[in-house]
């Protein structure tokens, strides 16, 4: 296991390095003058030069890159231009809110997908199955930037049951989590249904039935357990989609997380902050992928990475 972990982490390093370089190139090499963008075209050249010096933009590109890498290695992502704080500090302050939202979205997705997927598989062709099909088709087709406002119109404005926006107790969390989690619920419902239908014809299931186990236990204990492996993978892979989707969802519900910080940074052209936010999201995604690989290995002893 230790060798596997070491191997996986080492494999991650070139990707991390590449991601950092790509973001650096994106921010620094793509045409457009950040200084002018920040100060406006009418700013005096003395002001522009001062800001360029402050940002280190007057240095040769290679020097900037080396300084950027050296800073990254120390966890220093530079200083925000507007919020007067360190980029890493600003990001760290927003992580709990985004984590809360994405975990809640994941929970919502699992709470919808498990019962629905199991029902659909056990009652193939029946009403429940057809409902699951329609749900998964629409769940994937409805963009979160429409679902969010729709939920808000119905549950906050018309019915007045839930707060319109902001972060607070569980009531504040429900609509954003539903908005963010529905697409994942749709994917998982499909996966659980098809996974169960596939495993139910396996020999060991026939054995379980032949032993006289009741149908409920066969499905829940034997078939479902086996389908869990693919569910873990999808949950891990979909976490990236949740992180990216949280930018939109946080914007709809004024949720004070990393996604909203990213957007604010873009709107104020706070390039060091944009850079930091994009990297923070990408790193979290890679970390979750690594965790998925590890969990995957823990729950399925058949999988080996030693080859």
């Amino acid at each position, binding site marked *: 296991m230790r060798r596997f972990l070491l191997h996986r982490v080492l494999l991650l390093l*070139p*990707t*991390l390095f*590449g*991601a950092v370089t*790509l*973001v650096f190139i*994106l*921010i620094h090499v*793509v045409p*457009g003058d950040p200084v002018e963008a920040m100060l406006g075209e009418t700013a005096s050249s003395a002001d522009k030069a001062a800001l360029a010096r402050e940002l280190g933009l007057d240095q040769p590109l290679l020097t900037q890159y080396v300084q950027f890498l050296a800073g990254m290695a120390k966890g220093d992502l530079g200083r925000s231009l507007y919020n007067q704080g360190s980029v890493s500090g600003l990001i760290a302050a927003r992580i709990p809110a985004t984590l809360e939202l994405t975990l809640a979205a994941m929970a919502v997705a699992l709470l919808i997908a498990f019962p629905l997927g199991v029902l659909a598989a056990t009652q193939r062709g029946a009403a429940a199955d057809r409902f699951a099909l329609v749900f998964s*088709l*629409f769940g*994937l*087709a*409805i*963009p*979160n*930037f*429409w679902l969010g*406002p*729709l939920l*808000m*119109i119905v549950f906050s*404005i018309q019915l007045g049951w839930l707060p319109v926006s902001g972060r607070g107790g569980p009531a504040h969390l429900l609509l954003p989590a539903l908005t963010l989690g529905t697409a994942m619920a749709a994917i998982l419902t499909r996966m659980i249904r098809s996974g169960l239908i596939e495993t139910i014809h396996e020999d060991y299931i026939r054995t379980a039935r032949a032993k006289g186990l009741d149908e409920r236990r066969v499905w829940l204990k034997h078939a479902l357990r086996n389908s869990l492996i693919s569910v873990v993978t999808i949950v891990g892979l979909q*976490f*990236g*989609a949740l*992180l*990216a*989707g949280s*930018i*939109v969802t946080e*914007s*709809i519900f004024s949720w004070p997380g990393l996604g909203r910080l*990213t*957007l604010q940074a*873009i*709107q104020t052209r706070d390039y060091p902050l*944009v850079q930091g936010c*994009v990297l923070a*999201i*990408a790193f979290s*995604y*890679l970390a979750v992928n690594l965790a998925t690989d590890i969990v995957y290995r823990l729950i399925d002893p058949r999988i080996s990475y030693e080859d």
Partner: protein
Amino acid sequence: MKTSPALALGAILLTALIFAAALAPAIAPYTPTEQSLDNDLAGSSRAHLLGTDKLGRDVLSRTVYGARISLAVGFTTVALSLVIGFWVGALAGYFGGGVDQTLMRLVDILMAFPGILLAIAFTAVLGPGLDHVVLALGLIGWTGYARLVRGEILSLREKEFVHAAAALGGSPLRVVLRHLLPNVLPALLVQATFGVAAAIIAEGSLSFLGLGAEPPTPSWGAMLNEGRQFILVAPHLTAYPGLAITLTVLALNLAGDGLRDRLEKRGK
């Protein structure tokens, strides 16, 4: 072979959409930018079936014209991604070794960024505009196609007909285009169908965040963004463009599902 209901429904919806986009000037009662400021944020009426927006523009007309934007962005983006993805995948798969290693590392790096995050960063640097959206989404979205083509070519490379083509003096370019491309095309087509849906949602997201289409372009995402401010007084501004985008994505996903089933059946 029997056409599946999913494929049929998807194809019908998609055809209707393409017709709506092509015939927008004939279908839409007004031009998408025609303002009537004394009739703003009005609900449904005989003159404006789906009401009007904050500048008194006809929501029905804007929604119909929006189909042009979405489909154009979706198809151009995927075309760009397909070309890049095909060539990267073909080079990696055909030559293998160091070329393969380098190109696939690049794919890994791009895939380290979830969903539209990189597109958001791209458009943040380039500035808003649909051309920037297409460029950003196209330059980012090719990785899936590259992996697909590489995988297919790796498995085809050792087949006899490929060896024969090469032995007969076919240049690598000719082997790839004449013999390998036709074999990966069906799988590419399936993935591209889902790709168009994803690109349409991505454009919608970017425009919704104010990073995509600029006013007064009637992009569905931009319309939803404008509708946000009036969600209390004019929920119809949110309802119709969202419905349009959902039906479009649904149509493409159904078509993609149907094509994939067909491909899998043929493979058996």
